[in-house]
């Protein structure tokens, strides 16, 4: 076994050194009744070559790339990833290290994460960020729990057009804490209906996603006005942070916590994970923030360096009094996102965001021209909801047969929206791709 360096001779020497007669001696204290009867029934060992053939076959069987096309968004986004980023991320000094507990030997990770914290805070217009959480959904849940911890209030209001999976995750996290969730319905234009919010009281937080699950850009300012009246936290979450290349940052709109998913920032989709939980807030709340953080300091000779800090919030020091249980997070993805933001720069991310927006507009208008209907009026970024002309579901099905996923069916999430699809257009779609799709939809009329 090429991963196990021990030769038989070495094993014998080592057993002798520890005074054991054989390998089994090492497990003498495991009660017989706990032992395995026989070795687990698993296939293999396979050779490297069998493995590669097998994995290539599995990968090749997926409806991905080649003749397959997809207009799926809804939480994961297909963006171009520069080759140099993948090459740098593969450097084993980054990948094969672990949490930088020992700062002096981990300055690469530490400076990298400090830069991530800085760039993402700037990008979202916030003051501080943590080193990452698991994903956008748990980041939102952690944000709500933090608001609950700070305000000591037991209710939160969530927009009903926050990504449905996020709301499910929030429910799983909040239930045991006894925090009550109130969901705000949506209004005709595809944005959250704030009217119900006015009556609600004793709210720890109000949470909104913008662009929301329908791709619509929310009126965060109004929401902030209400929540600040109620002295509740305003939590802005997101699944597509690239939107902030164009839109006002959550910070500029009064968010107390801006959190969400960072996959869109140069991270492969990988069938949904790993992603990157982004969590940013204001300096005042830093000691209540979940997750690891990297801070600047200096060494014994006064040189600048970086360390994990504020560990007194964390489980390995505080055990049950920690602000969260998170330990392993998503560091490498945070590094990935930092590389991506730095690759684009301010003007670059603005232009890329504009391009996403404009392409989505192009497709939306094109589809409208061949008879599609667009149920929601509010401005969108790179996603929008559409119903195909005539028998919408049949049209969708026919496109599927042509190997195009024309968006996500919304019926399972909102029965009212049967026949409606959430489509996403990123910079990876060319005008001619879209023209072809429009023509195919047109043909079906």
């Amino acid at each position: 076994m090429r991963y196990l360096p021990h030769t038989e001779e070495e094993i014998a020497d080592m057993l002798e050194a520890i005074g054991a007669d054989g390998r089994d001696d090492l497990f003498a204290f495991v009660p017989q009744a706990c032992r395995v009867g026989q070795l687990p029934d698993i296939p293999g060992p396979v050779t490297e070559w069998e493995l590669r053939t097998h994995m290539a076959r599995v990968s090749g069987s997926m409806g991905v790339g080649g003749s397959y096309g997809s207009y799926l968004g809804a939480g994961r986004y297909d963006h171009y990833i520069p080759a140099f980023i993948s090459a740098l991320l593969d450097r084993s000094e980054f990948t094969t290290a672990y949490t930088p507990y020992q700062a002096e030997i981990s300055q690469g990770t530490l400076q990298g994460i400090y830069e991530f914290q800085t760039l993402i805070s700037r990008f979202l217009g916030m003051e501080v960020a943590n080193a990452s959480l698991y994903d956008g959904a748990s980041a939102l849940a952690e944000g709500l729990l933090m608001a609950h911890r700070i305000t000591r209030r037991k209710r939160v209001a969530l927009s009903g057009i926050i990504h449905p999976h996020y709301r499910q995750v929030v429910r799983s996290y909040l239930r045991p804490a006894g925090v009550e969730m109130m969901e705000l319905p949506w209004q005709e234009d595809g944005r959250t209906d704030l009217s119900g919010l006015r009556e609600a009281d004793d709210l720890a937080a109000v949470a909104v996603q913008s662009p929301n699950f329908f791709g619509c850009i929310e009126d965060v300012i109004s929401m902030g006005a209400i929540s600040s009246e109620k002295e509740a936290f305003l939590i802005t979450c997101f699944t597509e942070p690239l939107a902030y290349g164009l839109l006002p940052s959550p910070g500029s709109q009064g968010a107390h916590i801006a959190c969400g998913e960072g996959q869109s920032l140069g991270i492969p989709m990988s069938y949904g994970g790993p992603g990157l939980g982004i969590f940013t807030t204001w300096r005042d709340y830093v000691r209540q923030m979940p997750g690891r953080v990297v801070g600047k300091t200096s060494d014994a000779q006064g040189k600048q360096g970086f360390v994990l800090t504020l560990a007194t919030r964390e489980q390995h020091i505080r055990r049950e009094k920690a602000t969260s249980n998170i330990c392993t997070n998503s560091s490498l993805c945070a590094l990935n996102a930092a590389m991506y933001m730095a690759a684009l720069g301010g003007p670059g991310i603005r232009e890329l965001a504009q391009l996403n927006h404009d392409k989505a507009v192009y497709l939306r208008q094109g589809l409208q021209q061949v008879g599609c209907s667009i149920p929601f009026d509010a401005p969108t970024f790179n996603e929008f909801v559409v119903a195909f002309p005539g028998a919408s579901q049949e049209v969708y099905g026919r496109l599927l047969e042509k190997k195009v996923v024309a968006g996500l069916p919304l019926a399972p999430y909102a029965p009212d929206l049967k026949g409606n699809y959430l489509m996403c257009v990123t910079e990876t779609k060319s005008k001619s791709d879209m023209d072809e799709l429009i023509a195919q939809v047109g043909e079906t009329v």
Partner: protein
Amino acid sequence: MTQKPSDMGMTQEESLLWEKGKAGRCAFSMPQRDVDRVQLPSDLIGDLPDLPELSEVDLVRHYTRLSQWNFGIDTGMYPLGSCTMKYNPKVNDHCAQFQGFAGAHPLLPVEWAQGVLRLLFRLERLLAAITGMDAVTLQPAAGAQGELVGMLMIRAYHHARNENRPTILVPDTAHGTNPASATLCGFKPVGVKSNEAGMLTPQAVAEVMDEQTAGIMVTNPNTLGFFEEHIQEICHIVHEKGGLVYCDGANLNAIMGVVDMAKTGVDVLHLNLHKTFSSPHGGGGPGAGPVCVKERLEPFLPIPRIIKEKDQYGLSERSPRSVGRIHAFYGNVGVMIRAYAYILTMGAEGLRKASQMAVLNANYVKERLKADFHLPYDRVCMHECVFSDQYQRPHKVTTLDMAKRLMDYGFHPPTVYFPLVVNGAIMVEPTETESKDELDHFIAACRAIAREAETDPRLLLKAPHQLKLRRLDETLAARRPCLTG
């Protein structure tokens, strides 16, 4: 920057990203604009994002240099206790990057995603086979999230039986995430002390276990590196009182192919794929923390579940008693692919041998170092062994000083000051992928440091000496936190 010679070999100085940028550079290849520009309403347009502008060369140098300040498993031995820093096979990374995996959208029609669904389904079965447990969810993104899921299930189980059990037992040899996860799930942790041999005793458990208690969270092998010999009796006691047993199985690397976790009596068990199953730790993540359960807990597993009906794989949310969703999609699939590849490559025999060698390595280090470092529990250990700085304290040298000094010798330090039950703990987990030569080098370095502690303690107090930076001031960092630049 470079006006002064560096004092660190090939390692370069490197400023922060935003100190390097120049307006007008861009490292991203902007796609052709083939559609018209459409202006959003002006109130929907924010200020230009304040991100530095750099060229591709700038970034390649920046991150290459940063990487050179880092120590990884590929650099050398990384005996960080409780973290199972074993070698991460390159072929697994290679496979995980195949387009059909890395480029797959999680909401693809399931008919288009049969390949990966089948892989995940099989991985669940493989983990069940390895642990002896009945059903598995792969969804948790790391060990601690696995613990949360496990706790949620225990909670849901009791609720389903209309029981309200507010407390949970957590031994002092449990991992720090355990009480945190229990709390997050609304339980009040009640401590249980291990005995002088580092073992949890049935007596101690029996004393506190009652009908108000939801169960116990045992880390097994525990954080002292010992197998809980009385685990079956303990489970029995807990079960008798209607409780459930949660096992933190992040230390599974000691016992694959040797222990049948189901037989030990546990009800819920989480594993860390990024430890036992060799996926890279990525400087802190991502990981994956699958949860394995006995049959009676299966209905409570998170949704969606990966199912097989006829010859079709699918994702099911029909699970009314489920604790709900825990990840936006299905967890860290990229990590799972690597774990799957690892298991197939090792086979059953290979996994057992990995555990045997992991235990052999830990015992070898323990035996070779116990004359130089105090060994609070002198007995055969499993995958790791815990020393303390007791012998060095008279010289005013602490665990931290020795850890820092080890860096000068070219090793990543062990885990320090953990577990808390040992004062000044030094927790060494070599893993099975270290050869005897590497261990011998490590042992020699540790012994040399023990000598230095006696003869030249100042050297240790000021360590490290050979890295880019000297010892960093953690107190300063925490006092006036500066988290962004």
